[in-house]
């Protein structure tokens, strides 16, 4: 008889992330709809204009497209996309307004415009419903993310590198410094927007090869706990690193800095930091294009030069 394997590494049970409800599912669906529609508007303003009965408005339709894509991406990026859903709703209302303005413009085909408006109105109703559901459930909840990555190094090597906490800023994008203090404490400083800094002290609650856990101390700008585990992967596959981070951003001004730092897409950010850890471990450097040349650099320079002359 075949033996059944249950994937129960340590305390991890495989039930997915908490708190993923249908409102979020809807939000993602609408996000993708926005991106698709947006690309259509952006790339094909002419044919789309004809299809929905508004000619001669290419630029406008393109602008609507750009707006739609931006809104869609915002929805997709956020874990609990209340704010961007609100942006979507206002965007829908703009589109509705433009379409009803189109009813009056020359060359407009009424039947088609009404059809398009009905479609947009349908989407708007969904958007409003979804925004309401999300708003109702938005709490001062603990934000949480679990991320994993496979690294082509041994668990010991990965642990050693991470355990030297002063290495962490080399791959954690927003962390400026980690200072090791007496009694298993560390002082973290992270960069915020516009030169703002957030700071917290943490204590190591567990530290053995294979697992490090920490917890922020009283008076931290961000209350957070986390763990990182280094598990041996099947032969020839190195290490599976698992990071589990929970944090509660405070309210107020610092809260908004923190939200900017961690709030926008904590899962992508944590994943990116893990990936950068992997790059350090495997290649000895972090892949980047930051600071490379482009046709934009030139444009910015001349804009600056022009501004200096004005």
């Amino acid at each position, binding site marked *: 008889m075949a033996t059944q394997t249950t994937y129960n590494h340590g305390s991890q049970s495989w039930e997915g992330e908490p708190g993923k409800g249908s409102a979020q599912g809807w939000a993602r669906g609408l996000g993708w709809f926005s991106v698709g529609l947006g690309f259509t508007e952006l790339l094909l303003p002419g*044919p789309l204009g004809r299809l929905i009965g508004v000619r001669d408005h290419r630029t406008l339709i393109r602008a609507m497209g750009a707006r739609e894509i931006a809104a869609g991406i915002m929805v997709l990026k956020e874990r609990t996309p209340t704010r961007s859903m609100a942006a979507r709703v206002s965007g829908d209302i703009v589109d509705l307004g433009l379409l009803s303005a189109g009813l009056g413009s020359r060359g407009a085909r009424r039947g088609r415009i009404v059809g398009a408006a009905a479609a947009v109105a349908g989407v708007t109703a969904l958007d409003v419903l979804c925004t309401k559901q999300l708003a109702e459930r938005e709490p001062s909840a603990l934000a949480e993310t679990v991320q994993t990555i496979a690294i*082509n190094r041994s668990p010991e090597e990965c642990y050693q590198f991470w355990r030297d906490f002063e290495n962490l800023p080399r791959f954690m994008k927003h962390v400026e410094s980690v200072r090791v203090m007496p009694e298993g404490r560390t002082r973290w400083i992270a960069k915020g927007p516009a030169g703002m800094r957030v700071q917290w002290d943490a204590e190591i609650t567990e530290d053995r090869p294979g697992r490090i856990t920490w917890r922020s101390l009283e008076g931290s700008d961000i209350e957070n706990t986390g763990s990182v585990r280094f598990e041996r992967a099947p032969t020839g596959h190195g290490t599976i690193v698992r990071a589990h981070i929970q944090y509660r951003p405070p309210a107020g001004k610092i809260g908004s800095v923190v939200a900017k730092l961690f709030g926008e897409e904590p899962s992508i950010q944590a994943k*990116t930091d893990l990936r950068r850890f992997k790059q350090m471990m495997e290649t000895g*450097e972090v892949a980047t*294009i930051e*600071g*490379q040349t*482009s*046709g934009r650099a*030139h444009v910015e320079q001349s804009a600056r030069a022009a501004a200096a002359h004005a």
Partner: protein
Amino acid sequence: MKANCWYGKHDVRVKEVPDPTILNPRDAIVKITLTAICGSDLHLYDGYIPTMEHGDILGHEFMGEIVELGGRVNNLKIGDRVVVPFTISCGNCFFCEMQLYSLCENSNPNAWMAEKLWGHSPTGIFGYSHLVGGYAGGQAQYTRVPFADVGPIKVPTELTDEQVLFLSDILPTGYMAAENCNIHPGDTVAVWGCGPVGLFAIKSAYLLGAERVIAIDRIPERLRMAHEKAGAETINYEHANVYDTLMEMTGGRGPDSCIDAVGMEAHMPGPLYAYDRVKQALMFETGRPIALREAIMACRNGGTISVPGVYGGLVDKMPLGSIMNRALTIKTGQTHVQRYMRPLLERIQNGEIDPTFVITHRLSLEDAPMAYQIFKNKQDECIKVVLSPN
């Protein structure tokens, strides 16, 4: 320096931009002596690859001279003459160790974007949108080359730039396309598309032992080149039904393997073309898999479909039933360039391949905007453009 930058659909401009600098210890700066425009660049030029930004420097087929080295590149020195692979690969990860260089896990700083679109990210690529890293490309006077200790290959002085330039992409791409066909003696291989990739796929199929290669396109000078320079029998798909002709040529069985060297912007006479164009334009599919569908339907039972042609996202009307019921194998991927550079360099040195035959236009970097136009529109019998930047 001067660089050819992307500013939108059908809008590329040669601009004065800051010189590249070393950003990481394994970087090198290459002063470019020769660079090329690829069929893949046309997908960017035509606006079909998302996440391009205004001002991005294009180009992924280039070679030149090392002028600056990061502290951890020990196998190269200033003044070395190198060809640079279009895939940026670290050499250390799980995939690089298996020589699957185009799947390098460490070279795409925007891997999360690719994960959203494709589930996982492939390697970083020069000048090929932010989905695959946003790296500044090689249609420029200088380029920064990451992981320079792994990618660039030194070339002997007795070979000219034109003889070795295509080791950067299209020669390995054509070769891998043929290798993926798992060719046995006596095999018949059909190749859709007689652009540079298709032409090198034809050549490589013969090198790997195919007995017959049948090439399909509609551009007369490309079909002529496929026949005269690469030795293929040809079908002009505007004059003949491709499936019927292939069946007639193979006794009704179909080619043993089929190569799609066309990709997402395939063209076709007739209403199905309009169907795909509209769906692609409305973003219901991001590629027009016309050649691919035809290749699948034509391939013999149990045969192999090899797809070097680039696709971006979703396609429609894939004959999956044909693939499943007839036990077809599909092999594809961005080319694992690093794996093929050295053996193909040897073949060039031995005189087994002279890749220069595809070059029809030798221009200067400043001419890039015009060159994109004629290459895109197949004007002036253009098949492959090389550009001199310095």
